[in-house]
């Protein structure tokens, strides 16, 4: 089964008040974990998203789709990056815990829907 681990925009804001050493260690932790997950074959995909300040939202307004500046959700709730992993729930939670233990910032772990009729 597949799980998605999501990081949110609030982490970026939290980084602003951290020391350079803390930031360097955090990037090292994330990169190491990412490499491990890719090498073990557990990682299906992983991406980081650009800052939500650059986002646009297309809304249906006045009978037509209209792009407006800014993300749909509040910046701190906006998706900042994700891992898609081929793992069971226990392992997904264990991976997320490794990151949260360091960043002290929450992550969401969610099951990805199956395409086959028989799960």
């Amino acid at each position, binding site marked *: 089964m597949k799980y998605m681990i999501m990081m949110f925009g609030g982490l*970026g804001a939290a980084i602003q008040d951290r*020391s*350079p050493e803390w*930031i360097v260690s955090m990037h*090292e932790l994330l990169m190491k974990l990412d490499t491990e997950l890719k090498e073990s074959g557990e990682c299906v995909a992983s991406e980081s998203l*650009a*800052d939500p300040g*650059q986002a646009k939202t297309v809304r249906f307004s006045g009978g037509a789709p209209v792009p407006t500046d800014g993300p749909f959700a509040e910046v701190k709730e906006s998706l900042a990056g994700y891992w898609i992993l081929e793992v069971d729930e226990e392992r997904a939670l264990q991976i997320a815990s490794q990151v949260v233990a360091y960043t002290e910032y929450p992550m969401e772990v969610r099951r990805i829907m199956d395409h086959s009729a028989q799960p």
Partner: protein
Amino acid sequence: MTGNQRIGDLLREFAPQVLGVLVRRHGQFDACEDAVQEALLAAAMQWPGEGVPERPRSWLLTVASRALVDAWRADSARRRRETAAALGAAGHPPLADLTTGLADPGRDDTLALLFLCCHPALSPPSQLALTLRAVGGLTTAQIAAAFLVPEATIAKRIVRAKQRIRDAGARFELPDQLQAAERLGIVMQVLYLVFNEGYTTSSGPALQRTDLIAEAIRLSRLLHRLLPGEAEVAGLLALMLLTDARRAARTGTDGRIVPLADQQRHLWDTEAIAEGQAILTRTLGTGPVGPYQLQAAIAALHDEAPTAEATDWPQILALYDVLTTVAPGPVVTLSRAVALAHVHGPRAGLALLGTLGADERMAHTHRLEAVRAHLLEQTGNAAAARDSYLRAAKMTASMPEQRYLELRAARLHHPTPTPGPVG
């Protein structure tokens, strides 16, 4: 050099030559290009085990010709089935004709191929993909790996590009003189884009990105050999060599960006620097000075400086002044502001940046803000510099850039404590 590497080099050297011969004989660029790609794949499978044939170019031409005939037969068989029409592959020359003799050896079709692949009807991504395959002799899989996209994406891009070329009625010939300058401009732009794709993004497996740099330099060398009198082509090659010479010093062991001023200069490639300088010296003054030569001259001044402090900034500023008149643009202004700051102080640089604030083309790049942050830091305004770094960090879509900018901001917020006097 390993055997496989030698085979790879051979294949890539012959790819445009074989394709040129086929297209000249049969027209149908798209079908010929597919056939050559098949021949290259067959060679890559067979040669490492069976050894390189005695006449590798003829081998490739024979196999590509067979692939072309097979494709025609399959095509006409399909047509037969579909229309139940009478058999007849008339108009297609028999196999024997295809392989006798190569085009006269003095003729090199590579230039015509480059012009065709960089046809103005194509989008830049298509020009890039088609040039790398048809002229560079790379496989679809290699191109896909280098651009970090699925193989099917590149395959489709190439099919569509060839369709567009056919629809545009483009012919396999050198454009007339009036068009040639414009088309050459596009060819140089495509090669420079390939180079930048490899150089500026450090995302993805480093080795594959490096391949793009090597390929851009190889094709620029080829172009320079075909058009030795074109000063801007020489400038482009020199620019690539002088820029790529700094590659090893440009990123730290953990992938972090190291700015020019902090680079360990002993890591620079002195051979590439010497070659770039030699090309530039030979070229400057032989033709009209264009943006590639000017940028190469600026890169050469950086490369010549034994330390960052020893950089000849007044000379660099003078070159940016010329560049501003030859090829003005916001990116040139931005670089000129940096040079200006080095010569006349950060406030002079900041004043010039002020003129860019309203430029629409700068609204979606972090570069303006990043340069502003550096200059503000130099004036001693730590709070404003930090805000500027953070704004730039939010604007960039490059992970290494973002990490670099966040760290600069964090350093201003948490200054490394300077040890007080002992005792």
